């Protein structure tokens, strides 16, 4: 397990030139309102904002960094993709659509029919298609594979009945990629089929589930005799579990959120440099400055490990789960530090605060609390830390229960 493998850390001229090119572009192309939302820790940020940014990137040919050239990707090296993602974050730009560019696009390129590629890839690349993910179900929780939402064969079509839950941004999405039960006779991982569902199909209703901090991204989606053409099936019938997991693994790849956390940590520093303490500022405080250093070290550990694992990508397995476990942990640590930095103002609910002219806080701080609460989800969704630890125990440590 202890590979002597040095992470890519060196700095070539080429890559620095590329980095500069990306920076210049972002500075010119990024609309101010989007930048402001990102700087406010993405508070109020919606899939429509992502779409707008995707369109801008798409014009430059950069909206789908990992796609091959023949499907409209920029043909970047892995390192270029890595630098691109970092520069987006450090220049307060939104990242590219995780679902479209990062997950479903690559899965379509890998497993889709030619017809599917033609129908979907352009819309995924230019932001026209806004996706939501239909995996979770009310009674399944972390036990994803026990899903029950049925898709019954009817001629060439499937007819879906049941419900999906925790569906992020379902009110914005025009398509869903979802896992549905097509056979209940075998073990639970068998008999699952992955379908692309037009959200405008009759029989779909979306019910928002507000989160406790006031967010509205979550929904429950109900299906009542929703008819989906067989041509929208990705991969073989009943074999959707492995494709679904493949797609999830693509998510887990960038799920350490190193770049975003790095940008957040910068904003904590900004705040600490402005918040008064005794006769100086918080950033000069022995304790707080060391907390910042500690958070920086923790983040650096994740970053370096991510680089080490990603750049040795060919045999990247369940080890990558550790990146999500630790990356989300560090992110929660950093956003909590932001709230702490605000001192007594850390108790304020931002809704009213941001409306006020005389708000005493730096711009970046306005939504710290809300985002702090919202980010509790990171260790729950996309594979909870508990489930990921189970996976590592089983797959990497080869422990049996």
């Amino acid at each position: 397990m202890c590979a002597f493998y040095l992470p890519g850390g060196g700095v070539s001229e080429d890559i620095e030139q590329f980095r500069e090119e990306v920076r210049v572009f972002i500075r010119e192309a990024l609309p101010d309102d989007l930048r402001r939302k990102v700087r406010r820790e993405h508070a109020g940020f919606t899939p429509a904002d992502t779409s707008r940014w995707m369109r801008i990137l798409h014009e430059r040919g950069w909206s789908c960094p990992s796609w091959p050239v023949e499907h409209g990707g920029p043909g970047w090296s892995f390192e270029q993709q890595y630098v691109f993602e970092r520069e987006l974050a450090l220049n307060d730009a939104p990242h590219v659509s995780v679902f479209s560019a990062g997950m479903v696009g690559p899965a379509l390129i890998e497993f889709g029919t030619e017809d599917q590629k033609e129908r979907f890839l352009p819309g995924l690349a230019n932001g026209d298609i806004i996706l939501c993910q239909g995996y979770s179900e009310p009674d399944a929780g972390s036990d994803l594979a026990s899903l029950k939402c049925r898709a019954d064969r009817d001629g060439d079509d499937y007819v879906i009945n049941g419900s999906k839950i925790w569906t992020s941004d379902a009110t914005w999405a025009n398509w869903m990629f979802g896992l549905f039960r097509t056979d209940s006779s075998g073990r639970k991982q068998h008999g699952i089929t992955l379908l692309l569902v037009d959200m405008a199909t009759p029989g779909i209703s979306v019910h928002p589930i507000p989160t406790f901090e006031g967010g509205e991204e979550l929904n429950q989606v109900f299906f009542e005799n929703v008819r989906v053409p067989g041509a929208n099936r990705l991969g073989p019938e009943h074999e959707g579990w492995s494709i679904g997991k493949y797609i999830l693994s693509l998510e887990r790849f960038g799920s350490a959120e190193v770049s975003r956390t790095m940008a957040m940590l910068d904003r904590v520093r900004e705040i600490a440099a402005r918040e008064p303490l005794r006769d100086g500022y918080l950033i000069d405080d022995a304790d707080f400055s060391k907390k910042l250093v500690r958070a920086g070290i923790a983040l650096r550990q994740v970053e370096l490990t991510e680089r080490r694992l990603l750049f040795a990508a060919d045999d990247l397995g369940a080890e990558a789960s550790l990146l999500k476990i630790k990356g989300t942990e560090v992110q929660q640590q950093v956003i909590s530090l932001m709230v702490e930095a605000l001192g007594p103002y850390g108790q304020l609910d931002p809704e009213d605060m941001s409306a006020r002219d005389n708000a005493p806080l730096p711009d970046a701080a306005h939504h710290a609390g809300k985002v702090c609460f919202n980010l509790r989800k990171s260790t729950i969704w996309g594979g909870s830390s508990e489930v990921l630890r189970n996976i590592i125990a089983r797959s990497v440590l080869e422990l049996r229960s």
Partner: protein
Amino acid sequence: MTEGLTDDQKTFADSLDRLLTDTLPFARRQAAVATPGGFDEDVWRQLVELGCMAAAFPEEHGGLGGGPEELMIIGEKFGRHLVTGPFLASVVLGGHAVLFADSDAWKARVLPGVAGGTKKLALAWVERQARHDLHDVATSVRAANGRWVLSGRKDVVPGGAQADVIVVSARASGDRRDRDGIVLVAVPADAPGVVRLDERAHDGNRVSTILLDGVEVDETQLLTTPDRGLAVLERVIDHAIAYVCADAAGSMWQVFETTLEYLKTRQQFDRTLGSFQALQHRLVDLYIDCELSWSMVLDATQALDTPQRRHAVSSAKVAVGESARRVAEEGVQLHGGIGMTMDVPVGHHLKRAVVMNASFGDADHHLGLLASSPVSRESNHV
């Protein structure tokens, strides 16, 4: 040597718990938070009737003659039931500021009303440059033409929106961070020059920014002399800390108990979640956190009128604050997705814990106070 609560206190605690269970189920609590005042006026009236406002005040001021233990009982129940409203602001902060200060006239003027539920007070002490330091006071009160003029700005004033009278810490003399020269001033909320900007805190309570633009006050409104103001303020804040620790402890117990119940029933992987050993051990750690924190609450409460006050209170604030945060975060995590939703209480307990940590000095602040106090250096050896 050991004393439990009196029978009266136990009866009071039980009645309060029953009242809140009956009248403030979570959905109604949520509806109350969404009202302009942020609390349920009807429930508030019943709390007044039960004696919550009067419990901790001496009988001579219209109270029931209780003290810190009554505040602790109320805090624990309010934390459990996520009660909002200006109890902390009016009774614990404003009311005790007047009680501990030196103006008999003001005690007679406002305390019976506070105890009887007809008047609300607030205490305004936070300033932008002060962070958590009570003695860092830039708001000034200066003699001018036989009267006094109060100028400055106070932030995050709990219950400022509802208060009839606001007790303000102000500097009568000395430099901004001097410990001497601070007085407490009673200011009617409708006095000319008082401007209030209302905001809300994460826990649903209302807090205000209070702008004091040359507010004229007379000598009788000065509740303390300049050499007494800080001592009174510190004593009030310590009472408030003991109270919010009790509140946080109640909240923790509630999170622990509901999380435990949830995991006992929630099925996943064909078993109850509560049967997974890794989760069991984490529940045990929540339980331990609750027990340990409760001990600190009792200790701080008992110490309020003893020389150990400062040490016990700061210790409790650090220990209970951090535990409350940790327990609530774990509660959300162990609930899974459902823990993230608006209609399930656990997330709101987390908000309450975050507010508690940001109020009255965070862990670093109190660790600093403790580290620089001689008591922390003293040997237990004799």
